């Protein structure tokens, strides 16, 4: 597929639209989560603000912005304030390289199907994720509270353990796609078949390690409410807490988008190439399905114990991911 050049201001407008769309997607992910969790627990979920509670995220935002931005007297001001900003920024930035369409020509101007097409976009996403973790760790440390400190330590241990398995699980996809560029991987899946069939073990490892990376239940030990109050964001309130929540949910969306891109053919509509120009719609549908699956997982499974978490990460996921990568490499070299 040829990639025409895009005017810089077209890319800028595209970036603004995508960032805002991601924020809206985040707001309605919280709504969807509360609604779906409610129904799974025989409750209604939010149903007061607007029809079906659809205005609930906006009401929450107004409440958080108006709330006092309190911080503990013994906290380290600069780190305490910058930690949520860092986390939220890196989470949003990851969306710059995720492709959502084949590219369009409108009125003579070419519009890319992604904001930035980097040859190493997959590595960039993992690097940004690793920087974002600093926000969670530093935020917990800078608030000078024992619960936040324990939450930070758990975040540290858990994310380091599962990042290895997560990175190894996409190794098979990189080998089969013969590129680290997400655009090339999607093109490759269109040419052959969606990678979730040959890389099913890789997909399972990716989703499990990804759940741990975004510290969602059942891997939510860093912020286990019943043990640590709220983990690293115990001492945060108002919109600073809101930024941490934003970062967490956008990380979930990025993870789902990455899974869609790597394993489910990205924006491609299966079998009908003429429908591919509606790429963003198919992308959003696949994304929504995966996010719902994560919410379903949260509703269904109890939290792991700490030793179970470590054992699962190091003794099951990591060897499995290594074997998967090795076998894929052998087959790719063998078959050619």
């Amino acid at each position: 597929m040829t990639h025409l050049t895009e005017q810089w201001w077209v890319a800028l407008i595209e970036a603004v639209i995508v960032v805002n769309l991601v924020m809206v997607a985040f707001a309605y992910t919280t709504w969807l989560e509360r609604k779906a969790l409610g129904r799974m627990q025989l409750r209604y979920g939010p149903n007061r603000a607007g029809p079906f509670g659809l205005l609930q995220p906006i009401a929450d935002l107004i409440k958080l912005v108006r709330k006092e931005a309190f911080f503990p007297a013994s906290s380290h001001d600069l780190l305490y304030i910058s930690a949520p900003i860092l986390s939220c920024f890196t989470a949003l930035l990851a969306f710059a390289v995720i492709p959502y369409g084949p590219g369009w020509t409108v009125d003579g101007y070419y519009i890319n199907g992604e904001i930035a097409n980097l040859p190493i976009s997959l590595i960039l996403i993992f690097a940004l994720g690793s920087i974002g973790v600093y926000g969670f760790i530093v935020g917990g440390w800078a608030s000078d509270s024992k619960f936040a400190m324990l939450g930070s330590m758990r975040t540290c241990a858990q994310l380091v353990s599962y990042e290895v398995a997560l990175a190894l699980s996409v190794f098979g996809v990189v080998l089969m796609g013969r590129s680290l560029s997400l655009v090339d991987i999607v093109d490759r899946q269109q040419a052959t078949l969606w990678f979730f069939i040959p890389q099913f073990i890789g997909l399972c490892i990716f989703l499990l390690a990804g759940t741990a990376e975004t510290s969602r239940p059942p891997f939510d030990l860093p912020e286990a409410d019943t043990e640590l109050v709220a983990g690293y964001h115990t001492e945060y309130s108002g919109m600073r807490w809101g930024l941490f929540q934003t970062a967490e949910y956008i990380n979930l969306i990025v993870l789902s988008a990455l899974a869609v891109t790597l394993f489910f053919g990205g924006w491609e509509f299966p079998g009908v190439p003429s429908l591919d120009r509606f790429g963003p719609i198919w992308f959003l549908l696949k994304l929504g399905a995966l996010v719902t699956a994560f919410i379903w997982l949260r509703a269904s499974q109890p939290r792991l114990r700490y030793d179970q978490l470590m054992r699962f990460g190091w003794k099951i996921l990591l060897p499995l991911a290594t074997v998967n990568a090795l076998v894929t490499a052998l087959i790719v070299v063998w078959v050619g």
Partner: protein
Amino acid sequence: MDVVPNTLKGFGVTLRQVFRKPITQQYPEYLRPVYPRFRGRHRLHLHENGLEKCVGCSLCAAACPADCIRVVADENTAENRVSAGERYARIYEINMSRCIFCGYCELACPFDAITLGNDYEISEYNRDDLIYTKDMLLAEPQKKIPVADRDLYDTPIPYYKAHS
């Protein structure tokens, strides 16, 4: 290796609930019927001829463990006859922020002048508004709270055993 089927079973349990009706009661729209002997906001009662039943004896105030009732009695006169007895309550106040709704005032009253009603929506924005005067206690409650059927509870088997 029964970990995987057992984990998947958990997903089935949560998915089944999605297709059932939520059991949440939508409170401000739906008022759950109260138990027939529910102890809510107090009421003061009148005789059929319009005279107050309360004679200002202060037995309710004496029985009150929270000390939230204040009664100041006065003599009935021929021109100003308020109650059926010799005396009447010139001031009758209940401090609802202290009341524990035990019903001892109701038990202590020799004339059944005070009873506990079934109104439970008695929140206020101001503490002073929680001091109920005699006029407020004599007035009809503004909101009709549904009361459950008495026959539902007067059964040989206790309600909680029959409905669980």
